């Protein structure tokens, strides 16, 4: 490196009308946040929640308008600030990707808001809930719209902050506070890589504008010059940043814990904002990925998908199962990004946003109903501690909550990839992308494909397990405790504000929103018109067939296994233990990262105390020396001075004794002294 930051001319572009509209959409939740955060306590709760919800609805409509009227890409760029002659620009990019993502994010947020109006009613700390949501959404929109890595990083951190606040929303519970802290720290650790990436790119290109960097980057030729060329390393660093946010192995362990937050927040976090941000950023900067970095992404994505799916099998926490499933699906998206099937990854991100939000909202509805029952029980003075998230205590909700059951079923079918549902299309797109890639690379990459197909089966298995445990069979809590029998009737369908968002999201999980042909996404408008990319995916008819076969087998196994299970005896305790501890990843991180850091800290502190001792020794030496010098000063130097003073005083007083105070006496002595002086003078002369 020459040490000089290269200068690339960054043209400034004025914002056109549609970009201004997008900017307006971005600033709307910012204003909502400011108003509700600072004045929220003075506004009645219903007005507060409806204000945030209506603003979100308007944002959704405007986003749809932007998406429909958008043609081509609209890039606007203006100067952010200047330091000397260095100009920092910021920019806004409206493309098909970003406008689509905006529609998804605002729609899911809108649905979550509507849901929250009912769900969060009369909950503690209500006045802070909607401003946090607004902050979350605005930061996400910032990531979506920004074309500058520095600005993206700011919003990236704001997303982290908002997620921290929302995961720890019920912070008086220790587990919530711990989960929020965990999420925050895991994300911060990964975000370090983002900072490194920005530094590398700024060092190489002298700008952080993504589109400018894209013009000047050719990752293939960079890889030819050096395997560790700087742009390649920047790509690796950006990927690592997304490992934290998009919950990849080994940092995904924060996501299951993040279930401690309110359920609508989980829906938002998993669908439209937090985890989507990572994949979206990686899609934006996918021109930096290539060679061995891509391979790492694919391998880690594959490991993530498989491990998380396995963990979901033995989890009984209803929300955690969905959390693991999100991690698993994110693994799929990352694999797709790694093999270059970016449009497939984005397609899956979109479909996943809808059906995962729907799943969370449905499970939230079930939990809400359980809470409802619990509060009735409380009114009867029979309150008992109850884990309302435990699927072992549920069952038979199919009859009491039909709307929730139907929406859950649709989203469930979409997630496991049954035909005629959106997940089928996107998952097949990813699988065929993987297949194409494996055909080109060969050898070990077939293992990846095999494991991806295995994960399809496991996904079908654990989702069916949850489906059966919640909605089929009998109400298991009754069998454990008979006193619940009379409260079962209180488990009923929730209010419409909870049901409608669920139903709308379920509707969007059906195939015809994405492709007219229910079996093949290539013919749909989504893949054909929204994303004009160079990748032309060949249609492999056998891939969906294999996937459906695997899914069907898994479904059959799950149905036979869980159809009539009422008592849960853990036959493989070791395995459950392993899964419950996240494969000891946290222990591993502790051993690999935290312990060495502590050892280093200890060594540093010991070195420090040693240096302290040396300094102390030196100080003691100087004090001793000073004492000796002090004694010398007192007795020798001062003594000499005192001696001379005393001598003079003695002589003086001797002569003074001759003076009796008579004036003539003084004159007499003066004369004698003068005479003696003259004599002395005469002696020398």
């Amino acid at each position, binding site marked *: 490196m020459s040490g000089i930051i290269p200068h690339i001319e960054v043209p400034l572009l004025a914002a056109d009308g549609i970009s201004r509209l997008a900017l307006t959409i971005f600033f709307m939740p910012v204003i909502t946040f400011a108003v509700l955060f600072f004045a929220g306590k003075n506004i009645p709760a219903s007005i507060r929640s409806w204000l945030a919800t209506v603003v979100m609805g308007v944002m959704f409509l405007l986003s749809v308008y932007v998406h429909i009227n958008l043609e081509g890409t609209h890039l606007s760029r203006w100067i952010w600030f200047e330091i000397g002659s260095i100009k920092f620009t910021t920019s806004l990019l409206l493309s098909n990707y970003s406008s689509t993502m905006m529609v998804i994010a605002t729609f899911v947020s809108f649905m979550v808001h509507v849901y929250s109006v009912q769900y969060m009613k009369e909950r503690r700390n209500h006045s802070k809930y909607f401003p946090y949501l607004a902050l979350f959404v605005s930061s996400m929109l910032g990531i979506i719209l920004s074309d500058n890595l520095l600005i993206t990083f700011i919003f990236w951190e704001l997303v982290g902050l908002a997620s921290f606040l929302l995961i720890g929303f019920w912070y008086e519970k220790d587990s919530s506070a711990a989960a929020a802290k965990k999420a925050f720290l895991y994300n911060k650790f990964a975000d370090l890589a983002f900072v490194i990436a920005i530094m590398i790119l700024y060092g190489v290109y002298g700008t952080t504008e993504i589109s400018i960097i894209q013009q000047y980057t050719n990752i293939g030729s960079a890889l030819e010059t050096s395997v560790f060329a700087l742009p390649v390393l920047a790509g690796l660093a950006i990927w690592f940043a997304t490992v934290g946010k998009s919950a990849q192995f080994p940092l995904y362990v924060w996501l299951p814990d993040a279930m401690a937050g309110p359920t609508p927040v989980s829906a938002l976090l998993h669908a439209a904002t937090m985890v989507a941000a990572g994949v979206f950023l990686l899609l934006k900067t996918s021109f930096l990925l290539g060679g061995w970095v891509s391979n790492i992404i694919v391998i880690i994505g594959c490991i993530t998908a498989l491990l998380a799916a396995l963990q979901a099998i033995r989890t009984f926490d209803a929300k955690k199962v969905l959390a693991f499933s999100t991690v698993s699906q994110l693994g799929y998206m990352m694999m797709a990004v790694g093999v270059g099937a970016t449009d497939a990854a984005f397609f899956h991100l979109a479909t996943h946003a809808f059906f995962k939000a729907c799943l969370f909202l449905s499970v939230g509805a079930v939990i809400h109903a359980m809470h409802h029952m619990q509060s009735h029980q409380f009114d009867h003075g029979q309150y008992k501690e109850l884990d309302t998230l435990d699927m072992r205590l549920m069952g038979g909700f199919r009859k009491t909550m039909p709307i929730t059951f139907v929406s859950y079923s649709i989203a469930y079918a979409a997630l496991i990839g049954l035909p005629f549902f959106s997940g089928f299309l996107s998952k097949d797109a990813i699988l065929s992308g993987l297949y194409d890639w494996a055909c080109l690379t060969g050898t070990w990459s077939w293992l990846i494909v095999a494991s991806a197909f295995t994960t399809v089966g496991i996904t079908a298995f654990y989702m069916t397990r949850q489906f059966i445990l919640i909605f089929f069979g009998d109400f298991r809590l009754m069998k454990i405790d008979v006193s619940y029998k009379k409260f079962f009737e209180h488990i009923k369908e929730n209010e419409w504000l909870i049901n409608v968002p669920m139903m709308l999201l379920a509707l969007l999980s059906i195939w015809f929103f994405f492709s007219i042909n229910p079996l093949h996404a290539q013919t749909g408008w989504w893949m054909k018109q929204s994303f004009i990319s160079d990748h032309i995916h060949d249609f492999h008819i056998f891939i969906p067939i294999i996937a459906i076969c695997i899914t069907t087998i898994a479904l059959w196994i799950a149905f036979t296994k869980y159809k009539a299970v009422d008592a849960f005896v853990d036959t493989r305790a070791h395995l459950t233990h392993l899964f419950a501890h996240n494969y000891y990843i946290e222990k591993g991180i502790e051993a690999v990262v935290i312990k060495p850091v502590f050892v280093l800290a200890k060594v540093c502190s010991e070195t420090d105390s040693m240096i302290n001792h040396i300094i102390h020794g030196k100080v003691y030496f100087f004090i001793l020396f000073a004492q000796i010098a002090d004694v010398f000063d007192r007795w020798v130097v001062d003594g000499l001075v005192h001696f001379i003073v005393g001598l003079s005083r003695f002589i003086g007083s001797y002569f*003074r004794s001759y*003076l*009796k*105070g*008579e*004036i003539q006496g*003084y*004159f007499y002595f003066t*004369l004698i002294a003068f005479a003696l002086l003259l004599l002395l003078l005469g002696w020398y002369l």
Partner: protein
Amino acid sequence: MIPVDYYIIVSILLFSIGSAIVFTRRNILYVLMGIELIFNAANINLVAFGQFEPYLNGQLFSMLVITVAAAESVVALAIVIVLFKKLNTIDLSEIKNLKEK
């Protein structure tokens, strides 16, 4: 021209007489007069040696000494008056305030 020795003898005499007055007399006014004599002894010396010097600086200097002596005697007499007012005496044998107690 009178040799310089004679001047010196006169000046020595004057000096000795002045000194004797200063040492022996108890009246402060006599002591002041003795001091004046000593001044004049010095003046005679200055004038006597001044004649060897073409610019007569010595003689001029004697004029200066006379002037200073006049000023000095003014101050001295003022002191004497103050002394008399305070101590009600001009006898030097009684004035011993300079001795430390």
